[in-house]
């Protein structure tokens, strides 16, 4: 049975900074836009691959302390950022591949997401960029 269980040790780096201890969720999605190629005579729609538009969305605790979440992200809004995700903190390998988006765009940064009686958490999405995966 094939399963992947994420307990406590995925690794998330944003602009080379290890933010794993502030992250509670990381969703890395490879996406290649579909281009419709259906033509006369066909009885079903057909598609071909277009441009890649992969994304990484991370949920992080917000912190304004030195070298924490805000300090890491504040200068990255509206810029291209290199982000990496690895399933565990073990060495990069075929069973622990490190996925990277190079020059991925960070469009927005929630400054405060405050609720009474709850920790401040923010969702950050990195869009586009060149996808690569390292296995060694």
């Amino acid at each position, binding site marked *: 049975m094939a399963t992947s269980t994420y307990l406590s040790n995925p690794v998330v780096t944003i*602009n080379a*900074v290890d933010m794993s201890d502030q992250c509670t969720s990381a969703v890395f999605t490879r996406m290649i836009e579909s281009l419709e190629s259906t033509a006369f005579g066909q009885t079903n729609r057909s598609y071909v691959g277009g441009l890649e538009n992969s994304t990484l969305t991370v949920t992080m605790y917000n912190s304004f302390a030195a*070298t924490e979440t805000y300090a890491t992200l*504040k*200068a*990255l809004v509206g810029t291209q950022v290199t982000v990496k995700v690895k399933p565990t903190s073990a060495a990069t390998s075929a069973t622990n591949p490190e996925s990277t988006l190079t020059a991925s765009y960070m469009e927005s940064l929630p400054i405060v997401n405050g609720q009474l009686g709850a920790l401040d958490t923010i969702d950050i999405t990195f869009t586009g960029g060149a996808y690569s995966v390292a296995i060694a």
Partner: protein
Amino acid sequence: MAYVIASPRLGTVGDTYEPADGVNIEALIEGGFIKSTSKSTKSDKPSKDTNEE
């Protein structure tokens, strides 16, 4: 330009930092993760005013 790591989030504090391609150096400096070591060259400038008056 040489940099020194100032936060364990980036590596061992005090080690020289060699940025990989695509790393936003300005953001790392602004966030306090690295420090430029180029300040030492500024202090090497001779101060003209000393002992002139």
